[in-house]
């Protein structure tokens, strides 16, 4: 088997995650989908590091995880405060981007 299949898998997961971001209304699920996309990227990085035979890819993946962690923390905090204020976690309720 050619390890490139990992890349195909990553692409598939990424696409699925993206679709999820687009179709789900629940902010938490949207976040999960984003996590899914990030993980797909990580998988790709890892596969690439295997491809190139050095560890930089893994480093990047590592950083991605850290950043993802930070992002999740902040994001979830936002969701919580949002839920407090309007008792709902639906992204559509926050349609304030229109005047």
């Amino acid at each position, binding site marked *: *088997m*050619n*390890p*490139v299949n*990992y*890349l*195909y*898998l990553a*692409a*598939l*997961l*990424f*696409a*699925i*995650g*993206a*679709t999820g971001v*687009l*179709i*789900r*209304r*629940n902010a*938490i*699920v949207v976040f*999960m989908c984003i*996590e*899914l996309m990030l*993980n797909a990227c*990580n*998988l790709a990085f*890892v*596969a690439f*590091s*295997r*491809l190139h*035979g*050095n*560890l*930089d890819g*893994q*480093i990047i*993946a*590592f*950083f991605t995880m*850290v950043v*993802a*962690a*930070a*992002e*999740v*923390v*902040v994001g*979830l*905090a936002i*969701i*919580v405060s949002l*839920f407090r204020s309007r*008792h709902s*976690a639906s992204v*559509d309720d926050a349609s304030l981007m229109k005047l």
Partner: protein
Amino acid sequence: MTALAAYTTSTGEAFQFWVLGTVAVIGALCTILMRKAVHSALCLAGTMIILAVFYLANGAYFLGIVQIVVYTGAIMMLFLFVVMLVGVTAADSLKETIKGQRWLALLCGLGFAILLFAGIGNASLKDFNGLAKANENGNVEGLATLIFTKYVFAFEITGALLITATVGAMVLTHRERTERAKTQRELAEERVREGKHLPPLPAPGVYARHNAVDIAGLLPDGTPSELTVSRTLRERGQIRDVSTEALNDLRALEQRATDRLERPDLRRTDPGRNGDGDPAAERAAAVAGEQTEEASK
């Protein structure tokens, strides 16, 4: 160890890839298709664990572990906490509100997938160097050397980022109490002034058949009083109702009876179940459904 993550892959790895890969994809699909956030979270967790396995298979041992510990262990748990906060059983309806959004989304996703596949397919990635050399004196050591030499600034900055994120989260969630907390006396006077229920709020469900926090207590005339359920539950709409409880149990009994005695099905003619429109009734019905299933085991 070095045998793994070679430039070619053993049949074992292939087998593992095909099996786990399928599961991972299914997990991802479930993540985006489950109606309840908690289910999505669980599926996602599954997918992530599988990814961790793949990391290991690709010679990224450290990452594999971190994946399990940090992601599946920390982040997903965080998710679950929030989900609980927002409501475990709260299931969002899959009815799309924005016109054409769903189709556009699917189109984009599909198109993007095809695009990536095409891209990867074009790039002829045949010869994998494999990590044998890179990992020869340990994967972790290799990473460490890189992190603390080449990527040290990035590392520091990431640390700063984490701190900031933590502080940010606290700032966001922490609510400053601006006014003095009301004393009991003031609260009492306030109640009297408003003239609604003079006594303090009743404890939930304690006068009812079930001592459950999410069941409204019955007033002397037998009608349930929503006041007795805590606000959060009320807002999540997770109040269960004594009467519906009883009815469901009854129905379950009858069901079993019919099953056993092959009587004609009564559900059609049952007035209690046509709870369309009113969401509370819907939720009740859903809950009832579970109850029956549980009961039938």
